[in-house]
């Protein structure tokens, strides 16, 4: 396989979102990013569930879901302290892109990656995510943590490049907070969060540019958490002003998010200059960030609650030789980054990778080779030795053993933190299985979580959704009925939330996300409970009682109109009742709230098909699969509409894509038979799919007889 590039620079901007960047580019406020996308491709990058950065960045780096790579949250048990620690690189079970490239002899550097500590012994420089964090006041020594830098010989020069938060002076803050002098620092602690984020990102950038200037390289991956951290701290001050934000605070901080994006644009300019023209550059984010009317009005008081602010689409942009110019790409997910980089270097992708190569970004279709897995390929890959790696459960077992022997005495708070870390890891892994449409694997985990803490509404909701996915309607109904009838539980301690990785100062407010989510300890007791009506409406829907479902769903809508998923469900109920005009209105409402709702466009595609408006059905189905490529029904609707419009070849492609995603998609096979039987069709294909249908029906009949 021929390589398509000599060098690749992968830049990670946590939480970067086109919704914010595009207007700034249009206003000339992000000139570097604007030029970059003009000479390459750009698109949305669909995220994964749960939308938690350590899991997502490791999926980006491995091309695999979290059940394979092993990073299941923000924290893990620490046998050394008896408590918990940020999740470590020793917990990752599979090779990251920098390990594969190390194995193939490329000079490879990685900086600041989530779960990157301790630094891995790769063929190049590895700077862990603990590198930029200031651990002492400015008047005291600030040694680098052990294992923060590989190789050890670069420890001193890289250590010198760090910036302490105390070094941030007013001139650096003014571009973000022009009215800095009006900040009352005795009462208002926003500035300390600001300077911490700024200095940490400057430190990472200093290290990255120093490496680019002084070290030979073929690949570099550098991760900046700045946009995510600035947005979590300041997005509620971003224009337009939210009603709950006082005007004086709004005036002080309204420019921070814009300033953060402009700051990153300047960092990008320097990186691109140092990378040179012969480098293929990929810029991506793990998720977006709600910046408009979808900004949640409160943060659920549960571990990782601030993730409710994350939007399901991040960004991807690529530029370099053999990459298309000034074009858009559609349907990318963050699992696709690593397979694409491998192809750029002319290397095969692992069949055990969950992502695909973004072929549409290349100016000529690249040759793609596959091997069963990179994990079995021999050679030094720069991962930590196998006997140094320890999964969180084993770490916890060591910790428990030492405690049982009386060697260590974890405090009650530490014990609680470990318990929360393990519980959240299980919850996150179960959600990964649901995201992968494997409810059977998720079920025992959700059942266990619900058994342990039935008062946690999120556990009940996910368990019910899991039952629904398995068509166990009665079980789902039982769990939701218990949830709805449960009296309110006492509010959780703030410390429990923070211990598990949530941002300090999380607030418990009313549910405001796009899904029927309620905060950890909240229950349905009380009169105003739209989410309870919503959930019970979903049960009615699944039972086939559309009239009953609509009654409950419309009542929920009356109480709370801002929930796009509610309108989607209402639209689906109307569709079942063949009330097409009402369904169309409901899907439009969902799209008015969230224009990037793939399901909203999917619903409209179905409406248009039934109304025989096939041109519009094509448009809506294309919009749906552009937003979310893995959407078998979207490709199916597209195929139906195209077939009706006599575009049989394109229709065939759409049906085949649907089947590739959902092999048991019986109706899609039937359409393929019909389309290929027509004059000019591929008769062999028609026979092949007809045979598949026959086999399928026979298997089903045999199963029923058994």
């Amino acid at each position, binding site marked *: 396989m021929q390589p398509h590039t000599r060098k690749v620079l992968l830049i990670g901007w946590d939480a970067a979102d086109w919704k914010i960047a595009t207007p700034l580019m249009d206003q000339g406020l992000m000139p570097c990013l604007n030029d970059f996308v003009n000479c390459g491709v750009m698109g949305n990058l669909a995220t994964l569930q749960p939308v938690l950065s350590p899991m997502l960045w490791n999926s980006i780096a491995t091309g695999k879901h979290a059940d394979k790579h092993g990073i299941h949250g923000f924290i893990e048990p620490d*046998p*050394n*302290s*008896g*408590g918990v620690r940020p999740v470590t690189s*020793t917990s990752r079970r599979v090779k990251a892109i920098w390990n594969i490239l190390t194995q193939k002899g490329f000079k490879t550097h990685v900086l600041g990656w989530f779960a990157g500590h*301790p630094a891995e012994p790769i063929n190049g420089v590895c700077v862990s995510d603990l590198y930029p964090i200031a651990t002492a006041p400015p008047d005291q020594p600030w*040694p680098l943590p*052990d*294992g923060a830098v590989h190789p*050890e010989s670069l*420890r001193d020069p890289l250590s010198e490049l760090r910036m302490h938060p105390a070094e941030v002076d007013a001139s650096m803050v003014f571009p973000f907070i022009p009215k800095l002098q009006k900040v009352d620092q005795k009462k208002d602690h926003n500035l300390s969060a600001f300077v911490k984020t700024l200095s940490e990102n400057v430190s990472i950038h200093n290290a990255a540019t120093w490496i680019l200037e002084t070290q030979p390289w073929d690949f570099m991956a550098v991760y900046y958490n700045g946009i995510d951290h600035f947005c979590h701290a300041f997005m509620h001050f971003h224009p337009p002003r939210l009603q709950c934000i006082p005007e004086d605070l709004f005036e002080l901080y309204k420019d921070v998010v814009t300033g953060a994006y402009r700051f990153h644009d300047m960092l990008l300019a320097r990186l691109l200059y140092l990378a040179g023209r012969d480098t293929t550059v990929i810029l991506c984010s793990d998720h977006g960030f709600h910046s408009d009317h979808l900004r949640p009005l409160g943060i659920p008081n549960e571990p990782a609650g601030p993730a409710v602010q994350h939007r399901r689409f991040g960004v991807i942009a690529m530029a370099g030789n053999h990459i298309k110019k000034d074009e858009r790409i559609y349907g990318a997910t963050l699992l696709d980054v690593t397979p694409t980089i491998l192809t750029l270097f002319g290397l095969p992708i692992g069949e055990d990778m969950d992502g695909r190569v973004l072929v549409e970004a290349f100016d000529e279709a690249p040759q793609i080779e596959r091997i069963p897995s990179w994990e079995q390929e021999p050679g030094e890959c720069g991962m930590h*030795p196998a*006997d*140094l*790696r*320890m999964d969180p459960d*084993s*770490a916890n*077992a*060591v*910790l*428990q*053993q*030492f405690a*049982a*022997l*009386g*060697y*260590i*005495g974890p*405090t009650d708070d*530490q014990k609680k933190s470990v318990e929360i870390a393990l519980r959240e890891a299980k919850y996150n892994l179960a959600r990964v299985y649901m995201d992968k449409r494997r409810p059977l694997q998720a079920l025992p985990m959700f059942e266990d979580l619900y058994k342990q803490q039935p008062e946690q509404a999120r556990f009940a909701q996910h368990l019910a959704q899991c039952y629904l996915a398995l068509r166990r309607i009665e079980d789902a109904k039982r769990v939701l009925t218990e949830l709805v009838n449960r009296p309110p539980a006492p509010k959780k301690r703030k410390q429990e939330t923070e211990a598990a990785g949530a941002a300090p100062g999380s607030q418990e407010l009313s549910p405001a996300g796009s899904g029927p989510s309620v905060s950890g300890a909240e229950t349905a007791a009380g009169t105003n409970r739209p989410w309870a009506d919503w959930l019970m409406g979903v049960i009615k829907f699944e039972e086939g009682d559309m009239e009953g479902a609509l009654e409950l769903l419309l009542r929920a809508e009356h109480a709370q109109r801002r929930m796009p998923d509610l309108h989607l469900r209402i639209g689906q109920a109307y569709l079942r009742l063949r009330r097409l005009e009402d369904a169309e209105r409901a899907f439009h409402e969902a799209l008015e709230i969230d224009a990037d709702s793939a399901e909203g466009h999917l619903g409209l595609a179905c409406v248009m098909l039934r109304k025989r408006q096939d041109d519009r059905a094509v448009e809506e189905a294309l919009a749906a699969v552009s937003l979310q490529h893995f959407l078998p029904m979207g490709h199916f609707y597209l195929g139906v509409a195209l077939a009706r419009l006599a575009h049989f070849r394109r229709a065939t492609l759409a049906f085949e894509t649907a089947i590739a995603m959902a092999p048991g998609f019986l109706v899609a096979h039937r359409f393929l038979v019909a389309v290929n039987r027509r004059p000019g069709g591929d008769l062999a294909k028609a026979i092949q799919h007809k045979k598949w249908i026959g086999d399928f029906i026979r298997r089903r009949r045999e199963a029923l007889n058994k």
Partner: protein
Amino acid sequence: MMQMLAAGGLEPLTDGRRGADASNPRGYFEWEKVKTLPQQPNCIAEAEGKAVKVISSLLPSLPAAFHYKVIFLERSLTEVVASQACMIQKLGAQASALAPEAMERALHAHLKQLKAALRSRREMSILWVEHQDVLRDPQRVCEGLQSFLAVALNLPAMIAQVDPSLYRQREANLLPNNRELDVSL
């Protein structure tokens, strides 16, 4: 080891709270406060000039403000796991959820991580002592300790503390099908 050091003339830091038991009939040299190292690392100041027993996992919590002479006693992990399982049983505490082999692997990884972390601790000098060597050649071990600590120790008294009868979880006895192995040999 603590008994050896005490007999040699080093003052042990102990609170005397944990008395002798069947696992350790000569008593323990525990200092409960050491368990608070992760929260209050400066409590180690009380140990200045003395010998204190610290579990491996707490070593990274020792503050960098002091200089340490660390005597790291290593033992076959198969024996460690068996010994700890016996102690846990006697203490009536909850046994590990891991099988012995898995626990051994986890402890091995823990030690590897720990050694990697200690490598850059310039304020620590470390003497690695094999448990087996203490039993086989206490004279040489005690001389090594004296040299490492750079203090004059009462070597005969130290050597007298070594009691092979307390060495119960021998790896050879823990091997599966040990008898069959002997026969075949």
